């Protein structure tokens, strides 16, 4: 057994990266074996093992010991508490699904307190008959569920900065979350209203203050759009769109309009403020990309990441998340030498299309400085670019759709910080 372990710990890439199957093969242990428990019943047991526990709770909460696992809130302007974002602490989470209370939030003027009995979705514009749907009515329609990520178009925008920003990974890349969403296929409602032949866009509007509005191509919305009512099994959280939201898998989060109140079929986009002045990407040429819908292939290492410390040389598991709005993640490679060599990480099954995908790989840290990176490839063959390549293509003022490789610098003390490599 010892010999097999030693053999398995032969690196497969520079900097000590181990074969992605190493933990599966030898059940490698990170912690010393604990001392045997005392024999006498009750004696020496902790209090929680020797008296009855708490009564039943009608809605469970995380352990009080996990109280520090929270979204981080950042406001855009001091004038309003509702224009800003709450970031998912992705460095504190495992697996791929985001707990509802930690799902990221981006809203433009606060969370409306909607009475579901008085909320209605209207489908109108270029349809044969304009129709309104209450929440109770929609709950009787055939439903569909899908596990997909949502990512704000402005996630990771600090990556465009000239100098690497030193913040926890969740506060740079945490405007992405993943849930199982359930609701009514948009196509069913469109068919009931009868879409006219001239229609090619849907102008979607929310019931929040300011009526957030985005236009989406009809074909894409009809293909897999959902009027979502449920998030990870329970009704939508208020900040994520209660009582109903549009859900367009793979697209930038802003087009999955929350608090959905209106779908106007049209022969052109509305050219609303948030699809012209915002959520467009200014290029060095002075031209701006508009209607970039799909979030591109991307990954980031969450463990270890900024602000964490390795406790001395030894074996660690490098873990992270990968995703692509174009489909499944096909491969994630990890480098421990700043991109000089790469080893393929294990992908947690099932790696679903347009869903967060967990990757993991063993790493024996020698104690010498190292630079950790991850690089994702999706099933369409799209490869996550280096930062230098992305900046060369798009400049640094595009703000949205940053998806370059992220580099973590591990110094000789084991302290992890952000670097551009």
């Amino acid at each position, binding site marked *: 057994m010892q010999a097999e372990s030693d053999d398995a710990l032969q690196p497969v890439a520079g900097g000590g990266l181990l074969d992605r199957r190493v933990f599966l093969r030898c059940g490698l242990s990170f912690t010393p074996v604990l001392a045997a428990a005392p024999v006498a019943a009750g004696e020496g047991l902790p209090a929680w093992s020797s008296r009855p526990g708490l009564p039943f709770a009608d809605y469970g909460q995380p352990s009080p010991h996990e109280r520090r696992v929270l979204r981080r809130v950042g406001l855009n302007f001091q004038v309003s508490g509702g224009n800003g974002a709450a970031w998912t602490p992705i460095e504190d989470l495992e697996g791929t699904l985001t707990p509802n209370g930690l799902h990221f939030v981006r809203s433009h003027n606060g969370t409306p307190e909607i009475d579901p009995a008085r909320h209605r979705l209207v489908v109108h514009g270029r349809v044969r008959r304009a129709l*309104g749907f209450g929440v109770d*009515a929609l709950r009787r329609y055939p439903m569909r569920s899908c596990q997909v990520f949502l990512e704000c178009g402005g996630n990771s925008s600090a990556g465009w900065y000239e100098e690497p920003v030193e913040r926890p990974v969740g506060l740079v890349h945490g405007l992405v979350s993943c849930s199982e969403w359930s609701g009514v296929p948009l196509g069913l409602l469109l068919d009931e209203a009868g879409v006219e032949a001239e229609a090619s866009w849907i102008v979607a*509007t929310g019931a929040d203050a300011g009526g957030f509005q985005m236009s989406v191509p009809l074909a894409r919305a009809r293909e897999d759009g959902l009027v979502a009512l449920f998030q990870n099994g329970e009704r939508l959280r208020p900040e994520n769109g209660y009582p109903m939201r549009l859900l367009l898998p793979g697209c930038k989060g802003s087009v999955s309009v929350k608090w959905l109140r209106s779908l106007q079929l049209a022969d*052109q986009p509305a050219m609303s*403020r948030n699809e*012209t002045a915002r959520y467009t990407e*200014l290029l060095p040429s*002075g031209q701006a*990309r508009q*209607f970039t819908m799909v979030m591109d292939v991307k990954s980031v290492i969450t463990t270890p990441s900024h602000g964490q410390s390795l406790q001395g040389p030894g074996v660690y598991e490098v873990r992270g998340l990968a995703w692509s709005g174009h489909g499944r993640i096909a491969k994630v490679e990890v480098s421990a030498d700043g991109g000089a060599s790469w080893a393929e990480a294990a992908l947690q099954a099932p790696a679903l299309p347009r869903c967060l995908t967990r990757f993991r790989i063993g790493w024996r840290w020698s104690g010498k400085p190292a630079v950790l990176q991850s690089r994702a490839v999706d099933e369409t063959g799209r490869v996550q670019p280096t930062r230098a390549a992305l900046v060369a293509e798009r400049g640094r003022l595009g703000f949205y759709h940053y998806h370059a490789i992220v580099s973590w610098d591990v110094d000789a003390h084991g302290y992890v910080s952000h670097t551009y490599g």
Partner: protein
Amino acid sequence: MARRAVAAWLCAAVLEAGAGPLGPPATPGLGEPVSAAALTAADLGVFPDGRGLPAGRGDVPTGRALFEARCASCHGPAGAGGSGGRLVGREPLAGTPLSFRSVGQFWPYATTLFDYIRRAMPLDRPGTLSVDESYALTAYLLQANGVIGEDAVIDARSLPAVRMPNRDGFIRRDREPAAR
């Protein structure tokens, strides 16, 4: 061979319709008719060709006074920027960070300005500006950006005719099939 082709075609047609093996999903058909009068301004898009613009009008001096009273506290005097974004300025666009891009530098359509003012401003009381006030503020901001003159009157007819300086500054990615 022909039969297989037909079967494949049928299968593709069924998939395209989003139907399962039992045919299209039966829906309860609970949509209630909505009259045009029941739609609110918030439900309606305002389009670059002027469709969706309401009746009403506004001029530059009225808009200027309104701006100083209702908007300058966040957007700065004459729209120079403050806790809210900068709105006025005509420097070259290339190199300008997101929150400094003015209406005159960046916005491709004047109709967007009216819609966003009426829909979303001011941030602490959205939807409280009248149609005429929204037209007047639109007129002032277009004038301050050097797009229209001091004497211009903005309404449902004149607004879509305004050509914004950055009208051709956008690459429509929805028109690139590969990008989707």
